[in-house]
Every structure is written in structure tokens, then in C-alpha cells.
């Protein structure tokens, strides 16, 4: 009794709305309109090597790395504390961590705009402590802050879920063998939680590189990350060929790095790309 044909409507749908758009993206990436009609070209990809655009790419990657590191430093202890068995209410605490994730991404970012703007709450507090003329909104720091705020749960939750599954007997064994807490942390807990850390890093880094909302709202109009660059090419400049080329490169970079990350992920159960 094979019912494979049940999936045919879906397959048709995916070919139309996933495969064909992807081919169109490729088409725009590698063609150029000339007098003689459409021609194959690598110019759009080469144009990305222009220092202006390389700087944009570099800046996006650097900010995303900073954001990922901060999330890891802040988030690992949170996962550790949430997973420790002292709290009977740890399910509630984990839920409290998830709730902000369900609030619209834009609203969460917008909330920081209200706090950071001139005459906002943080501004007023800093003024009260006589910090001279604090410029908060529309800076690199504001963008990183927005990223950390939005993506922190993506770091904490995978770490938390790996740590709760950790066999408590292993830790007890280490204690019996005379290890103190620091040693246990260094030699037992951290190595065993690495799969969670890796998926946390992936889940924070990927959206941080591609965001254009956070950089637009907290970084201001002049602020350019690779996401803004793509948006600009399509919505303002109208250069779809170059816009497609940037999107294509971004996609390749993301999928390849995800594939590499997955290779190190022990928890990975197959089925996905690669």
C-alpha cells in the first residue's frame, strides 16, 4: 500500500515556489543585459570584491561574531543554571525564556529604540549620572545590543536542552573520583555540552549575519550590513542582477558553514542537507 502520490501536490508546489525561484536567482546572478541580449557573466560576483562591498561583508561578519561571542558568554551560564537540578521550577523558568521569542521580532527591536533614543529611559538615566552627551541609538553598540537581545534565547535553549539530558551519574562519578566543581565543569560538563554549544552558535550567527531590520532600526539609515545591501539593491537601486549575486553568495556561505557545523554536531540525526 504505497501512498507516495499523496506528496505529489507538495512536490509540484515546491518545484514552483522553491526550485524555480532558486534557478531565477542563479539566472540573474550570472547574466547581464547587453545590446545583443542576455549574456553570461561573472561580473556581478566579481563586483563583490570591490573594497566597498567587501567592507560591508566584513562588517556584517565581525558584528555577527561579536554578537555570537557575547551570547555564548552570557548564555552558557544561563543554560547551566536553568539545567541545574536545584530549581524545581526549571520548566517555568525555561518557559519564561521562550516567551520573548514569540513576540514579534520587530517589536522587540523597536522596544530598544524607545529605550535608547534621545530622551529615552536609558538616555535619561545616563544623563542623571552626568554622562556627557550619550549617543546611544544609531551606533555599532546599539546594533550588537539588539542582536544579542533578539538571539540570546537561540543560544541558551540548545545548551539547556543538552545539559538537561546529561547523565547525572557521570558528574557524580567525577565527584567521587575527587574532582572539584571547576574541574568537573572543564573536563566533563563543557565537553559533553559541545553539541548544544555548536548548534547555539549556528542559530545565533546565521540570523545575525543576514539581519537587515536590526541594523536598519537601531543603526539608522546610513547603516549598511549585507542584509541592507541586498534590500537596497532590490528595493531602491533596482539592480536585480547584483542583488541576486549578493544573495547567492550569502546563501552559499550560510549553507556551507552550516554543513561544516553539522559535521561536528553529534546530536545530528540525518535528513537535512549534506
Amino acid at each position, binding site marked *: 500500500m504505497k*501512498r507516495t502520490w*499523496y*506528496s505529489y501536490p507538495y512536490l509540484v508546489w515546491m518545484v514552483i515556489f522553491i526550485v524555480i525561484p532558486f534557478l531565477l536567482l542563479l539566472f540573474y546572478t550570472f547574466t547581464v543585459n547587453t545590446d545583443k541580449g542576455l549574456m553570461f557573466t561573472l561580473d556581478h560576483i566579481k563586483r563583490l570584491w570591490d573594497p566597498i562591498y567587501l567592507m560591508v561583508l566584513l562588517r556584517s561578519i565581525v558584528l555577527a561574531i561579536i554578537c555570537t561571542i557575547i551570547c555564548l558568554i552570557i548564555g552558557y551560564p544561563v543554560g547551566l543554571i536553568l539545567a541545574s537540578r536545584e530549581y524545581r521550577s526549571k520548566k517555568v523558568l525555561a518557559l519564561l525564556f521562550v516567551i520573548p521569542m514569540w513576540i514579534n521580532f520587530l517589536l522587540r*527591536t523597536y522596544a530598544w529604540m524607545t529605550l535608547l533614543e534621545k530622551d529615552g529611559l536609558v538616555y535619561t538615566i545616563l544623563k542623571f549620572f552626568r554622562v556627557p552627551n550619550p549617543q546611544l541609538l544609531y551606533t555599532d553598540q546599539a546594533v550588537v545590543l539588539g542582536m544579542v537581545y533578539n538571539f540570546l534565547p537561540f543560544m541558551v535553549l540548545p545548551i539547556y536542552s543538552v545539559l538537561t539530558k546529561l547523565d547525572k551519574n557521570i558528574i557524580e562519578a567525577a565527584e567521587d573520583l575527587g574532582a572539584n566543581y571547576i574541574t568537573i565543569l572543564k573536563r566533563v560538563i563543557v565537553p559533553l555540552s559541545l553539541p548544544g554549544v555548536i548548534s547555539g552558535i549556528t542559530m545565533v550567527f546565521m540570523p545575525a549575519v543576514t539581519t537587515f531590520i536590526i541594523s536598519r532600526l537601531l543603526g539608522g539609515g546610513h547603516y549598511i550590513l549585507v542584509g541592507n545591501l541586498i534590500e537596497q539593491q532590490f528595493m531602491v537601486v533596482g539592480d536585480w542582477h547584483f542583488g541576486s549575486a549578493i544573495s547567492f553568495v550569502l546563501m552559499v556561505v550560510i549553507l556551507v558553514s552550516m554543513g561544516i557545523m553539522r559535521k561536528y554536531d553529534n546530536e545530528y540525526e540525518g535528513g537535512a*542537507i549534506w
Partner: protein
Amino acid sequence: MVTRLVKRIYLYLIFMFLYAPIVVLVVYSFNQSKSRGHWGGFTLKWYLELFKDTEISRALYNTIMIAILSAVIATILGTAAAIGIHDMKKIPKAIVMNLTYLPVLNPEIVTGVSLMLLFVFSKAITRIGLGFFTMLLSHITFNIPYVILSVLPKLKQLNKHIYEAALDLGATPFYALWRVVVPEILPGILTGFMLAFTLSIDDFVISFFTTGSGVSNLSIYVYSMARRGVNPKINALSTIMFLTVLILLLIVNKRMSKDNSHAKEGVK
């Protein structure tokens, strides 16, 4: 004892970091004074202005219509697809699953941009301009994989002999599917539906690229207003949206814990 206190304080600080902006937003939505530095007294005028705004009510209508339609269509297509995929042989299955994961893993902005290319490119043939309909098609597209991914595990758990038993007892394949298989995988279908619904309501990036002039959903509306700076009306809108999400989440959570306790009883 000291480490325990430190842990507690650390956790509270993180929760403050997560919730303070939202609380401030909610409080300011009742602030009389338009400058946010000080408190000008309690007011509901931003809410009144919000309800008078026809653009917002149209955006709200679009958001909800698209969320319902896309979730229903994606659930039907996705469930059927999951049943089909479950019966596939290894290699076709691997190919289809990779295709399914693509929109999940791909950066949203790339999915949005490539769908926009499709719609603009096909406009000459289909005569469908960017707008409500293209946004709906895009939402269905990014929702289906999530439905499939929540239904497939339930199918794996399913005891296939029940279905065969139904056939032996004379049920037609479709009747057996409808009365035996679907009720068994219903929790997965419902999870997929809820996931699709919330993802659709929450989406900004893909909607932004696949909609045309004049048609916006709430996210796009908030974005276009926030780009011009802080506005108390958005605070009021945010508060309403936040409360709605919170209530929905509480309902879902209650449902899920009920499901779990049923499952546990079943094991006993």
C-alpha cells in the same frame, strides 16, 4: 549557599534584560506625554488613535486572513506530503527531505528575494501583481516544511499494523486513512498548524519582499512607522500584540501539558 545566591541574581538580571524593554514599552503606551523621558499621566488616547486608524485595521485584516489561509492550506498540503514522504523509498525520501529543509535553513532574505523574482518574472503570464495573493503564496511556501517536520515524527511512531487491520476489516484505503491514521497523527497536525499560524503572523522579511504597494501586514506597518522613529501608537499596538501572544501561548501550553499527561497515562 553563596554560589546559589549568585546564580539566582544572575538569572534575575538576565530576565530583567529580557523583559525590561517589553515592560517599558507597555508602560509607555499609557503615557500622556509624547516625549518618553518623563511620565505625563495615564491615558488611553494612543489606543483610541490606533482603533481610528484605518490603515492599521486593514493591516490587521491582512495579517489574520493570511495567517489563517496559509496555515490551513499548508496543513492540508503538508500532512498529505508527510504521509506520502513516509512511504517513499530511501533515496527519493532523502532528496525530498533535503528540498524540504532548504527553506528552513536558507536565510529568510534569500527566500524572500527569490520568491519576489518569481512573482515579478511570472507576472507577464499570470497577470498577478505583487500583493495579497503573492504574500499568501509565499507564506504557504515557508509554512509547509514546518507542518511536514511536525507530522513526520508522529507517522514514525504510528503502528502500521493498525492501518492494515482496518484494511483487513474491509475499510477502503481512504476511509482507513481518515478514520485510523489521521486521528493518530492529529497532535502532530495540530502542532504543525499552530506553528504555521504563528510563523505567518510573525513573518516580516518574506512578506516585505513579496508584497506590493498598498498591501501590508502588521509587521510591515510597524517597520514602516518605526523607520521614521518612535511613535506612541506603535507602543499601544505592541502592547495589544504582546498580550495576544501571551494568551495564545498560555492556551497552547495548557493544551500541550494536557497532551503530555494523557501520554503518560497511556504508558501506565
